[in-house]
């Protein structure tokens, strides 16, 4: 690592630190329903949308109705993406004449984009036409992110309202997140990215004759509009197969910076927004501190690991799977950011990372993607850990645990445990299943411990709704498409429903005033406890299997063993 790398890393952190309070305050305004600088422009279309949809924006929804609205709305998204794929051949804007997608791949992809996972068992340029990418995938990139924000808002209202039933209006939360936050930022990002060379057109693929006289097909399409929201909405699904390693998807170091920045921007800002909305900024900052601590630790280990000499290949800092314009540091920084933020886009192939850098990416996902995490999802994810933390702290001192004045009791703990443990069980259970079945094992492309890592990464990515992969694993099979599809569904909704149930339960409670016996949740002790809970839950669950995968691979690599 040289001074240039360090400058870029510091610049990245600085931009995030500056943007977080600005965007966070703006989002708080938007979701409190206050007037903001976009209201004069977007107010009328917003009102028109409600009128056309027959929605009363003042209607309050209890947690069950809020959840039902969410599920119905998401089901529509799934259905649309599924149908667009299986009838692709008969639909317009398919200039390459791509065939209908098989049922299992269509199921997998529809689930994947609805759940904000963006796991891709296909390559965009050879599987999906412009219409599916635009009307199916781009739309879900927006709406799955907006769904996440809506759940987060429900939970924040649950924490702030006293003896209330309603959590807000799901339709309003969905519309406002899309209209005021996601669309404007995406417009800006899409244009900036196009300026760097990301393609944006509806031209059929072109045929070029190279300097040496052979034929080269040049794939095109409306990529920039999809890539902007793919990064901003922590979706991660590439327009092209190799995602943001593709020169048309991520052409320059600046486009790379913009995309990495977009990837963590909203997840960081939303935590600040939480502080503003509960009128206790320090509470938000405490969560941000806990996230940042884990992020910096993870990045440090991953970068160090990537620079370590690899005796098998006789080199350190191997460029396999990496692009020259980004180099090592930017590739590792992206890998750590994308795996913490539930984004899942890649600018270098994770399968070719050194064992411990790959482990960090995997572990970030296994920890529940709460280190900033997905749009909306990162916040309600870490709140589950916060509930566990105050519960454990309460047990230690023998007091009823409280968070922001709300008593944390049996139902909340139960739901939080469900939300934390079920996705973990899916990761481990799914990996075991794949390792036992011939149709699971046949997907592995690496011998030795790396093969186990490939399967483990796949199920972590699916259950964690991340979407990145050790892409050597051949996953476009009926088994993986269905199994990973189910893992994505569980990983998404078995966290969302408990989060909303907790919100509903907390909304109904009174808020206790702060007393001398209150455990402060904005101080160093709490931050330390929270970090410990996140790491200990993750380590206890996954250390054994990680030992068999990336850890043993690391030691075998040091001995120069190849498979």
């Amino acid at each position, binding site marked *: 690592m040289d001074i240039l790398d360090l*400058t870029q890393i510091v610049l990245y952190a600085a931009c995030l630190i500056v943007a977080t309070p600005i965007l966070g305050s703006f989002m708080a305004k938007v979701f409190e329903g206050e007037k903001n600088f976009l209201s004069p422009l977007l107010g009328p279309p917003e009102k028109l949308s409600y009128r056309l949809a*027959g*929605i009363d924006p003042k209607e309050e929804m209890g947690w069950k109705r809020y959840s039902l*609205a969410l599920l*119905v*709305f998401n089901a*529509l*998204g799934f259905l649309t993406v599924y149908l667009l794929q299986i009838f692709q051949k008969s639909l317009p804007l398919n200039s390459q004449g791509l065939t209908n997608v098989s049922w299992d791949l269509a199921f997998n992809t529809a689930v994947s984009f609805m759940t904000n996972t963006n796991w891709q068992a296909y*390559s965009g*340029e*050879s599987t999906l036409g412009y219409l599916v990418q635009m*009307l199916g995938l781009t*739309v879900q990139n*927006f709406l799955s992110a907006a769904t996440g924000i809506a759940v987060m808002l429900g939970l924040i209202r649950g924490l702030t309202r006293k003896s209330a039933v309603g959590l807000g209006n799901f*339709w309003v939360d*969905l519309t406002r997140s*899309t*209209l005021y936050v996601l*669309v404007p930022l*995406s417009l800006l990002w*899409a244009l900036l990215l*196009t*300026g760097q*060379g*990301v393609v944006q057109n509806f031209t059929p693929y*072109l*045929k*070029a004759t190279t*300097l*040496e006289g*052979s034929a080269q097909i*040049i794939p095109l399409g*409306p990529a920039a*509009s999809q890539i902007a929201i793919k990064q901003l909405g922590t979706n991660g699904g590439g327009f*092209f*197969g190799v995602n943001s*390693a*593709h*020169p*048309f998807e991520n052409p320059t170091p600046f486009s790379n910076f913009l995309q990495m920045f977009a990837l963590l921007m909203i997840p960081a800002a939303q935590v600040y927004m939480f502080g503003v909305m509960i009128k206790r900024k320090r509470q938000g900052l405490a969560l941000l501190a806990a996230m940042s601590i884990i992020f910096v630790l993870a990045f440090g280990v991953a970068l160090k690991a990537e620079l370590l000499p690899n005796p*098998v*290949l006789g080199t350190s800092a191997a*460029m*396999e799977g990496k*692009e*020259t314009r*980004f180099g090592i540091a930017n590739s590792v920084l992206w890998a750590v950011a994308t795996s913490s933020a539930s984004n899942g886009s890649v600018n*270098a192939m994770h*399968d*070719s*990372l050194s064992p411990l850098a*790959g482990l960090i990416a995997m572990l970030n996902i296994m920890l529940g993607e709460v280190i900033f995490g997905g749009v909306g999802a990162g916040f309600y994810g870490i709140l589950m850990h916060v509930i566990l933390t105050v519960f454990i702290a309460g047990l230690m001192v023998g007091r009823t645990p409280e968070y922001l004045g709300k008593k944390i009791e049996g139902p909340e703990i139960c739901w939080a445990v469900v939300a934390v443990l079920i996705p973990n069980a899916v990761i481990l259970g799914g990996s075991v299943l794949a390792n036992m079945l011939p149709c699971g094992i046949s997907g592995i492309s*690496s011998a*030795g411990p790396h093969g186990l890592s490939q399967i483990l990464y796949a199920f972590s990515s699916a259950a964690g709704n991340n979407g990145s992969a*050790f*892409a050597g694993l051949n996953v476009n099979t009926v088994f993986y498409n269905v199994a990973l599809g189910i893992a994505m569904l569980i990983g998404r909704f078995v966290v969302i429903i408990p989060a909303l149930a907790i919100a509903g339960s907390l909304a109904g409670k009174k808020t206790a005033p702060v007393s001398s016996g209150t455990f402060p949740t904005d101080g160093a002790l709490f931050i330390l406890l929270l970090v410990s809970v996140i790491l200990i839950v993750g380590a206890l669950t996954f250390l054994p299997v990680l030992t068999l995968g990336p850890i043993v*691979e690391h030691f075998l*690599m040091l001995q120069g*063993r190849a*498979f």
Partner: protein
Amino acid sequence: MKLLIQALRLFLILTLLTGVVYPAVVTMAAQLFFSYQANGSLVMKNGKLVGSELLAQKFQGEGYFWSRSSAADFATVPSGASNLGPTSAALKEAVLKRAEAFRKANHLSQGVALPSDIVFASGSGLDPHISPEAARLQADRVAKARKLSEGKRQMLYKLIDQYTEAPQFGVLGDPRVNVFRLNLAVDSL
């Protein structure tokens, strides 16, 4: 039932906004302000499309600078990487082979250290760049194959420097040479 109708209507409205209006607006603005970039940074030569500045081409001739290895053999539909892991015997073998072939083609002794980018395959399989070091190591081969005079040879060396892109804005990314653009320039030496 009311919920379902509301969901359906709002879904249609938001689909129209994010799936039709938004991409259409981006396309119009992109075509207006950045039409070269938005259409693929295409390069024409004698009225014919010879490629994109951004997509690597396969160069095998002695008279051209070579791109990085591509696991998908420079396929664009679909693009692809090797996805070989850090303890892969196949990767180990491929790297040894590439290093040997590169040394042989460029008449380099075993003592010359090869830059990492030239022996490892890229992430996209279409990496348009190589490191400046990887370009310099190929210069003599290119000059010899083209039977360049001493003066032209010096110009070739200068071209490499000229086509070396510094980090963007002085800080972002690694120094690199666009192989396709360099070869275009070499052709008109």
